């Protein structure tokens, strides 16, 4: 079975299984899927939203690919994302008053990158120094990060002019520039450049190869003289930093502020996408587009057809389950053939 089918088959099966669920919910699956497609891809407004949504997802994917390829399981993305978002939202309106817009945007992105990277240092250090499993520690740090982000909004960055706790809002005119008069901000271009750079980094550079060696076999890496601890910390920081950059792009491009208790939880949503893409930076672009359109279409469909928005998550879960199944069957088949 070729690669295309190994990827498309799980998606088709998931859509089919999803259709069965929809029938049980008393909804017309064709109407739902048709509406999702129309709202997510085939209407200009929807397509713009889909592409806009892709920007943070792609940047998060870039961050996860770097980490996962190196065998570093950074699952603390949500905490890193939210902290970077809050810091960006607090800084941008203040900075823009004293410096040009372009400089503000760039500085905010850099600081978001750094803030998220710092939040990853503790799990990175514990893994590098003591071999403590980073899945557990990065998840724990994620909960702490999410809470800290809320505390920051409520205690320090609460815009006094609002009643609900939220940061000051960056004026629309000061946000990321739009592309050719559309509603799509230039974050998507940045995300595409970053994901391609990450792909090249992993496939063409000594640094990427070192990360792969560390990921495939830490013992061999140590034997070959690679500084496994340092590489782990750098990988973690790079991964978290890119996730922080995703947050900055989303805040500077779309929201302009952060409300308390806001948490899109993109970090966890993207994990399955990068696995579907087999940690390939180019393939993940397609999956992100697919998932992004599902999200946007699903949001509209939730309002219009009354299928809960979380149905999109169900679909994603089904895709993963079928992916594993197809993978398993394919593996069995190959073993039988003795390839």
């Amino acid at each position, binding site marked *: 079975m070729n690669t295309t089918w190994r990827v498309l088959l799980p998606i088709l099966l998931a859509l089919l299984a999803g259709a069965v669920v929809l029938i049980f919910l008393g909804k017309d699956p064709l109407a739902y899927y048709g509406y999702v497609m129309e709202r997510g891809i085939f209407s200009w407004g929807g397509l713009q939203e889909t592409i806009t949504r892709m920007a943070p997802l792609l940047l998060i994917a870039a961050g996860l690919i770097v980490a996962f390829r190196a065998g570093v399981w950074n699952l603390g993305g949500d905490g890193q994302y939210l902290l970077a978002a809050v810091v960006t939202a607090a800084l941008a309106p203040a900075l823009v008053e004293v410096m040009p817009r372009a400089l503000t945007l760039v500085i905010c992105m850099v600081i978001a990158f750094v803030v998220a990277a710092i939040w990853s240092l503790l799990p990175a250090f514990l893994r590098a120094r003591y071999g403590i499993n980073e899945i557990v520690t990065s998840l724990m740090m994620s909960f702490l990060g999410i809470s800290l982000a809320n505390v920051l909004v409520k205690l320090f960055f609460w815009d006094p002019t609002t009643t609900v706790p939220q940061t000051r809002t960056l004026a629309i005119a000061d946000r990321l520039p739009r592309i050719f008069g559309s509603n799509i901000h230039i974050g998507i271009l940045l995300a595409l450049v970053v994901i391609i750079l990450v792909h090249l980094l992993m496939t063409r*550079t*000594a640094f990427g*190869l070192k990360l792969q060696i560390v990921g*495939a076999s830490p013992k*061999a890496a*140590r034997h070959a003289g*690679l500084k496994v601890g340092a590489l782990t910390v750098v990988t973690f920081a790079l991964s978290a930093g890119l996730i922080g950059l995703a947050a900055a792009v989303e805040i500077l491009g779309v929201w302009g502020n952060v409300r308390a208790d806001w948490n899109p939880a993109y970090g966890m949503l993207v994990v399955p996408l990068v696995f579907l893409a087999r940690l390939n930076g180019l393939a993940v672009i397609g999956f992100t587009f697919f998932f992004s359109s599902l999200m946007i279409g699903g949001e509209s469909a939730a309002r219009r057809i009354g299928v809960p928005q979380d149905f999109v998550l169900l679909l994603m879960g089904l895709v993963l389950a079928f992916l594993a199944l197809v993978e398993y069957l394919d593996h069995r088949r190959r073993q039988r053939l003795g390839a």
Partner: protein
Amino acid sequence: MGHTDGPPQSVRPAGADSAPVLPSPVLSVRTLTKRFPGVVANDGISLDFHAGETHVLLGENGAGKSTLIGMLAGMLRPDAGEILVQGSPVRILTPRQSLDLGIGTVFQHMLLVPSLSVIENLMLGGPWWQRLARGAAYRRFAELSECLGISLDPDLPVGHLSLGQQQQVEILRALWRDTRVLILDEPTSMLTPQGVRDLSAVLCRLCSQGVAIVLVTHKLAEAYDLGDRVSVLRQGRLVGGIAADEHRGMTEAQMTDQVIAMMFDPAHAPMADERAILLGRGNVHAPSVRRGAAPCLEVRNISTMPRTAAHGLQGVSFDLRPGEVLGIAGVDGNGQKQLAEVIAGQRAPSSGTVLVGGKDVTQGDVAARRNAGIRYVTDDRLGEGTVGSLSVAINLLLKNVGAEPFWHRGIADWARIRQAARDDIQRHDIRTRSEQTLLAKLSGGNIQKVLLARELGKAEGDVKVIVFSKPTHGLDLHNAQLAHRRIRESAAAGRGIVLLSTDLDELLTLSDRIGVLFQGRLVGIVDNGPGAGAAIGRLMTGAVAA
């Protein structure tokens, strides 16, 4: 089946009749065949195993010995043929069924849980719904220990035992139930000479108690010393054997000649130096040490922190001169790995210094040591020496990632990397479909060739010292001989060689001097020559350690 109840029928009290009259065999295989993609690992093998007899299966690596015992142990399923236990055909689908049929297997690699105690390891494998019957287990342990003449503390964690003792636990476990057939896969590969003597004593007692023993080995001397009957496998086929009565009347030389004739195609009959490896007794050592020269490696008072199940080094010191082969003997786990890693720069010593060509390199990491002229051929070829999921080409450059001329400012020059790999593949006769093939697809011998190419090839800098760790472990004759030749060539070229090996014969064949590591200390260095083997054997058991 209750594993702790009642006295076993098979392990009878000592003193039972010891001259087997060979009734019907306990275990037989009939035209047993097993195919793997591309090879027929076992091709119509028929054999009988009798009670009270040690049956040696001889053959090179890849001859099909492990496949055969894998099928008997329930790890593999035969494609054709049948297995008979006391004359009736059986199907062995799982290891548990194999145990239920009275077949106990001791594998080459220890399969014990190091953090559990001896008795806990022995109780593993009982039905999960039963309470652990400790009392019964201790009784069974005492009974078996007495039977076999071994003394172990049942409450000690297995990780604290020596490998020889761990093997005894494995044997106990294999005999735990009513075992009629005991299969041992290369059981002497990590024992001291003393350990081998203990093992053969245990096997003798078991034989006299009517257990059928199947001993898998590739060493001819062992077959002669331990076996009653020998069967020889070659390329998956049974190519001959020596019957018990025949065996008794033969001298060792007669038997080895006959067996070698069976083990090898006449067209590829082993050469003199290959025969030496095979017999493990020939000593064709030609010293190339340059005595007057300044030492190329000085190890001064090195100590390391102990790790679980392995001793740390304590004050290890030695000099190595250009062209000298310094063998390091000792049972696995006495500090060999640490010593190799300290020299290679993979492990920082807690005290002491390492000098290469008179220059202190103690602080240097792997790359610095490599630049200083140190090379390290590890024994853990797949675990740390290579990355199975990466290509042969990358593995050939694993220790040079990012270095010119293959990377320019960190950017890979794939064309050049592949070309260099193709050159290496040709020069070192590495059998692989292409340089892009994943390393894990290569055979053990070819993986060793990749390592040798990487460490000994026309590498950067001036090579002064090469550390070989168990260079022939698990290799077939041809590749073992190739490794030996490389070691000799390197020494003749004026490099200092540190040869860590648990194979005493190998050390005696290649070394100028042989040091012995015991519990992390270098308890002595013996000049190679007549009587060296005996002296080393004594040192290995710590007899002279003080």
